[in-house]
């Protein structure tokens, strides 16, 4: 009797364990995998945003090229104080595509005023080109540091806001921000922004991905990838 009870307990335990190993895959994860396959088949760099793990990965062909840890993920929208009319979350898993980003627009222009004929070869002989070792290092045009806080417009109507500093959310901070914004609006300088999925990261990381935020960049958003 005792043996049969023990055996039945063992069998039910074994069955339970077998079932646990047989857990069907999470539908969201499978959908995300299929979306990633679609991206990885193209010769492009894409990003994977995992809100659960709070990371943004730069990938190509399924290979992680770089990882950016996030310090926060929020939905930011401009609201009057004491209102709770927040936009609904965009559905995930999904692929967001950048319609226009700072990588498209933040450019420095170099434009000579006029062009003069190049010196002829025999003119150059008067001042022969020094050997490579003696070539003086040219002074490069300084490349401006990319911004650490910027927005990219997504094709789904949302903005993606990359920032190293989230706006204050405590009562006093929000009140002061409201006063500042009100003062700007009073002077006709107020700005209205689309609701934004906001990714907070260090300033260095924000600058690092600045040039990637250009039109056509695909961002797969899926939890627990």
């Amino acid at each position, binding site marked *: 009797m005792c043996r049969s009870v023990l055996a039945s307990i063992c069998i039910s335990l074994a069955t339970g364990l077998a079932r646990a190993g047989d857990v069907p*895959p999470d539908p969201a994860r499978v959908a995300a995998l299929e979306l990633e396959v679609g991206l990885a088949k193209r010769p492009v760099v894409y990003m994977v945003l995992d809100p659960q793990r709070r990371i943004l990965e730069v990938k190509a062909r399924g290979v992680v090229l770089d990882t950016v840890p996030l310090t926060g993920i929020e939905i930011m929208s401009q609201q009057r104080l004491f209102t709770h009319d927040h936009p609904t979350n965009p559905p995930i898993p999904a692929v967001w595509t950048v319609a226009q980003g700072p990588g498209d627009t933040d450019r420095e222009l*170099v434009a000579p005023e006029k062009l003069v004929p190049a010196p002829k070869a025999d003119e150059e002989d008067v001042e022969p080109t020094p050997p490579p070792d003696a070539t003086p290092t040219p002074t490069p045009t300084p490349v401006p540091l990319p911004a650490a806080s910027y927005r990219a417009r997504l094709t789904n109507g949302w903005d993606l806001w990359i920032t190293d500093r989230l706006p204050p959310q405590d009562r006093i901070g929000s009140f002061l921000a409201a006063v500042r914004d009100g003062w700007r609006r009073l002077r006709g300088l107020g700005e209205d922004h689309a609701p934004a999925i906001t990714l907070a990261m260090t300033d260095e990381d924000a600058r690092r991905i600045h040039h990637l935020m250009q039109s056509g960049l695909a961002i797969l958003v899926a939890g627990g990838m």
Partner: protein
Amino acid sequence: MSAEAEPLVTAPTPPRHPRWPLAVALALAAVLLVCGGSAAVLARLGRPFLAAPFDATASPGAPEPDPVGLRAHAVAAEKELGKVHPRGVYIVVDGYRNRLHLVENGRVIRSAVCSTGTGMVLKDPRNGKTWVFDTPVGERVVEKKVKHPVWAKPDWAFVEEGLLPPTDPNERFDDASLGDYALYIGDGYIIHGTLFKSLLGRRVTHGCVRLGDEDLEFVYRHVPIGTRVYLY
């Protein structure tokens, strides 16, 4: 009998309260009232950014999953993803940090300091034509490898110097600037050497990837034609 003068009894003078503290208090209250009121009006007018948590869970509304079908889909997707993974040797170029990594079977076998594109735009004053000096982003392939490469300078190389591009093609050839080796990755982009070693690690190029002599030779010898290059 002498008449004694009665002491003069005077009524006690009430203490005089200065009025200025009251005035100051009233003024302060008025200022506070005006400031507070203005702030309240401005705050009501303003629309600050307010945060709501991003819901990281999957959206509802998906049909009830069929476990067998799901498993098949998952296996197929994993297999497809495995197929597109690069194999053998490949190159990764980090355009922000200016680093080139040579990867073999998932392991970095060489990391080198490089120089990449400035991202600037050059405009030709004659016709308004523009060139963007970006190192491309995405996947490319090593199409050609050349020892002792000669550079046929394109128009922008002259325009940038304020010079008219020459009409004689022979005046465009430069056999020093590209170094000892060149790996062509398409659309005129090249992984090559440089005369200006001190600028390695900075964004100074017109889109090409510059390497130091030793790193360039190592990459040239280890990378066959057809190798994939990932630039980001």
